[in-house]
C-alpha cells in the first residue's frame, strides 16, 4: 500500500493539451501511472500521447472509473475545472496551477467537504508513490524520478515541491526509500495540510517513518501539533524547518506565497518549539535526516 495514489489509481488530466500538462502526462505514463485521458474544452476528439482528449469530464467518467484528476489549467479556470471534477464523482483532486485566487480555493475546499472529496494543492507539484504511480509532475521525467525516488518505508510531506524531491533524493542516496511523497503546495490556503495526512500515513502499513519540510508563516504546524496531541501517531516524525533568517525579516515574503513572518507564531523558532512539544524531532541540519531516520527505523 501507500497513500493517496497507488499502482491501480486511474487518473485523468484536466488541461491535458497544455504544454506543461502534456509533458508531465507523458512522463507519468513512462513512470507507469494509469493516466487514461484528459479534458480540454474545444479539443474533444484529439489525442495526447495516445490518450483520448474530451470536452467534458463526464465523457471520461462514463468510460472509466476515474479515481483522481490532475488540474493544470490557467488560474481563472481552476475553480470551474475543480467543480466539474467533484460533481462528476472524482474523489481526489490535485491542483498544479499557481496563483489561484484565494476565494476560489476556499470554494473548492468547501465543495470537496460537502462531497467527501479530497483536494491536494493548489500550487502542488504532485504526489508520488515511488515505483508505483505518480500524480502531477513531482520529480520530472521518469528517468529523473528513478534517480531521486525509490520505494521504501519513509513518508514525505512538504510545503515546497522542489524540497519534496530534494529530501527524497537525500534519503535515496543514503539507501532509504519512500512510501508516498506529497507536495502539499506553497500557497496560504491549501486543501490538504500536514495534519490532514496523518490518518493516512498512520493507516499505511508500508510507512514506518515520516519526514516533513516546512517554512515560516501559516498555522499548519500548530494544527499538526494539536492533532498529534489528540491522536498520537505510531510513527517517528522528523521535521526540517527552512528559513531561520526570515524570522528577523518581518513583513518580507521569501520563496512561496505563504512564506512571510508577521507575528511571533510565524517564526521558525516558534514552530520548532510547538512541534517539539508535540513529539516531533526537529532536525537542525537537513543532511542529518538520513541518519536520524535510519536510527529510528532500526
Amino acid at each position, binding site marked *: 500500500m501507500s497513500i493517496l495514489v497507488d499502482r491501480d489509481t486511474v487518473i485523468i488530466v484536466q488541461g491535458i493539451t497544455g504544454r506543461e500538462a502534456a509533458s508531465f502526462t507523458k512522463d507519468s505514463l513512462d513512470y507507469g501511472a494509469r493516466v487514461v485521458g484528459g479534458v480540454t474544452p474545444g479539443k474533444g476528439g484529439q489525442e495526447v500521447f495516445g490518450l483520448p482528449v474530451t470536452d467534458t469530464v463526464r465523457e471520461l467518467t462514463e468510460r472509466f472509473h476515474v479515481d483522481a484528476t490532475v488540474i493544470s489549467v490557467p*488560474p*481563472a479556470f481552476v475553480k470551474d475545472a475543480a467543480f466539474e471534477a467533484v460533481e462528476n464523482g472524482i474523489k481526489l483532486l490535485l491542483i498544479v496551477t499557481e496563483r*489561484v*485566487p*484565494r*476565494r476560489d*480555493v*476556499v*470554494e473548492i*475546499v*468547501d465543495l470537496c467537504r*460537502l462531497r467527501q472529496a479530497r483536494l491536494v494543492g493548489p500550487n502542488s*507539484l504532485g504526489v508520488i508513490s515511488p515505483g508505483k504511480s505518480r500524480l502531477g*509532475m*513531482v520529480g*520530472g*521525467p521518469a528517468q*529523473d524520478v528513478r*534517480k*531521486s525516488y525509490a520505494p521504501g518505508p519513509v513518508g514525505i510531506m*512538504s*510545503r*515546497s*515541491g*522542489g*524540497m519534496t*524531491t*530534494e529530501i527524497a*533524493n*537525500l534519503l535515496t*542516496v543514503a539507501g532509504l526509500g519512500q512510501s508516498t511523497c506529497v507536495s502539499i503546495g506553497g500557497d*496560504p*490556503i*491549501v*486543501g490538504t*495540510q500536514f495534519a490532514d495526512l496523518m490518518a493516512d500515513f498512520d493507516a499505511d502499513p508500508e510507512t514506518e517513518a515520516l519526514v516533513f*519540510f516546512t*517554512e515560516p508563516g*501559516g*498555522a*499548519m504546524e*500548530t*494544527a499538526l501539533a494539536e492533532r498529534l496531541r489528540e491522536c498520537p501517531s505510531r510513527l517517528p516524525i522528523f521535521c*526540517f524547518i*527552512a*528559513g*531561520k*533568517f*526570515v524570522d528577523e525579516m518581518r*513583513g*518580507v*515574503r*521569501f*520563496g512561496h506565497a*505563504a*512564506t512571510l513572518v*508577521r*507575528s511571533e507564531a510565524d517564526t521558525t523558532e516558534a514552530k520548532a518549539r510547538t512541534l517539539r512539544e508535540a513529539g516531533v524531532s526537529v532536525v537542525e541540519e*537537513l*543532511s542529518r535526516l538520513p541518519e536520524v531516520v535510519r536510527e529510528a527505523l532500526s
Partner: protein
Amino acid sequence: MRLYEFESKELLRRAGISVPRGRLIAALDEIGSVGDDEFPIAAKSQVLAGGRMKAGGIAFAQDATELAAICTRLLGTTIRGHVVDRLLLEPRVDVAREYYLGVTYDSAAKTPVAIFSRSGGIDVEEARAVYKAVFPLLPPPSSFRFKELLANAGVKGRLLSKMTDTMTRLAELFLEHDCTLAEINPLAVTASGDLLALDAHIDLDEDAFYRHRDLVSDWGLDSRDSSERTQSEFERKAAEIDTTDHRGVAGRMVAFDGSLGLLIGGGGASLTAFDAVRRHGGTPANYCEIGGNPSVWKVKELTKLIMGKPGVEKLAVIMNVVSNTRVDLVARGVVKAMLELGLEPSERVAIFRIPGAWEDDGFAILRKYGVPYVDRTVSIDEAARRAVTSEGS
C-alpha cells in the same frame, strides 16, 4: 496588496458602510477649502503602514493656523519608511465607544473568518477578548453567521442589528473585491448612536486582479510596489531583469550586507541554502530565488548584477534537485556572465550545486571552465559549507 486608508474607506462607502466625510490633499494650498465648521479636524498621513498614530503620522488641529502647521510638518516627511505625499483630512467625531470588526482567511480552517472585539483601535493579533467565527462559502454565507458571532460576544439590542448589518456588508465587500483582509478598526459608535468606520485596512488578493480590472486601472494598482519594505536600487534592478524576460521566475532579490553572492532556488531550497550558508559562518550578500526554468539571459543578467554589488567576491549557485529548471541553461548563464565581466569562472564561482534535469550537459559546461560543481550525492548543507570555505581561501 495593501490599500491606502482613503481607498479602503471608499470601498466601505460603496458597500454602504458610513465613513467620515474626508478630503484628500497632496499640497498645502489645498487646505484653503476647509470650512471653519469642520474643526477640530484630523490630518492622517496616507502611507501603507500600520501604527501611524504611534509614529506621529496622525495629528489633530483646532483651527486653520494649526492645520497649516501640521500639514507643513507631515507632507514630505517619512513615516515607517514611507514618504507621506498625501493627507486625509477628516472632521473629528465624538465617539461613545469603539469596536473592532474584521474579515480575513483562516488558513488552518481553510475558510474566511469574521473577527470582533469590544476594544477598537487595538492590534487584533495581540488583543485578548477577540471573538472569531469561521464561515464557509458553500452554502453561501448569510447574515445570521455574523449575528451569532456578535450576540455571542455580548452585543445586544439596537446595536446588535446595526452591527450585524455592518459586518454583513464588510463580509460581502471582502468576497466581492477578493480581499485577503478587510478591517474596520476602530468602528465607532457616535454620541448619536450611529456606526462610523474611523479607520480601515484592506488588503487585496493580487492573484484576483484579473477580475477587478476597473479598480486596478482606476487606482493604478498594477504599477504599485506591493512590498511593505522599500526596495533598494539593487533589488529594483533584479525585478526589472525578471520582468524583461518571462522565462522562469528569477528575482525576488533582497540585499544583505555580506560578501558571498547567492543564486539559489527554488522556493524551499533557497531558504535552506541561505540558512546553511549562515550556519557555516558565511555572510550572504543577497537572497535571490530562481526557478521555473529561467533563460540563459536571465541567469546571466542576475549573475552580473550580484557580482557587481560592492564587496561581492564569489558566487554560490545552489538549488534543490531540479525537474523543470534545466541545469545546463543555468550553468551557461553563470559562466557567460563571469566571462562578460572579465572574471575567471573557476575562481569566482564558489560552488555550483544543481543536480537534475539536463545535469550531464550542465556539468560538461562547468568542467570545461573549471567551475567547482557537485552532484546529487552532495547535500545542500555540504555545498553551502564548501562555498563558505572556498570564499575564505
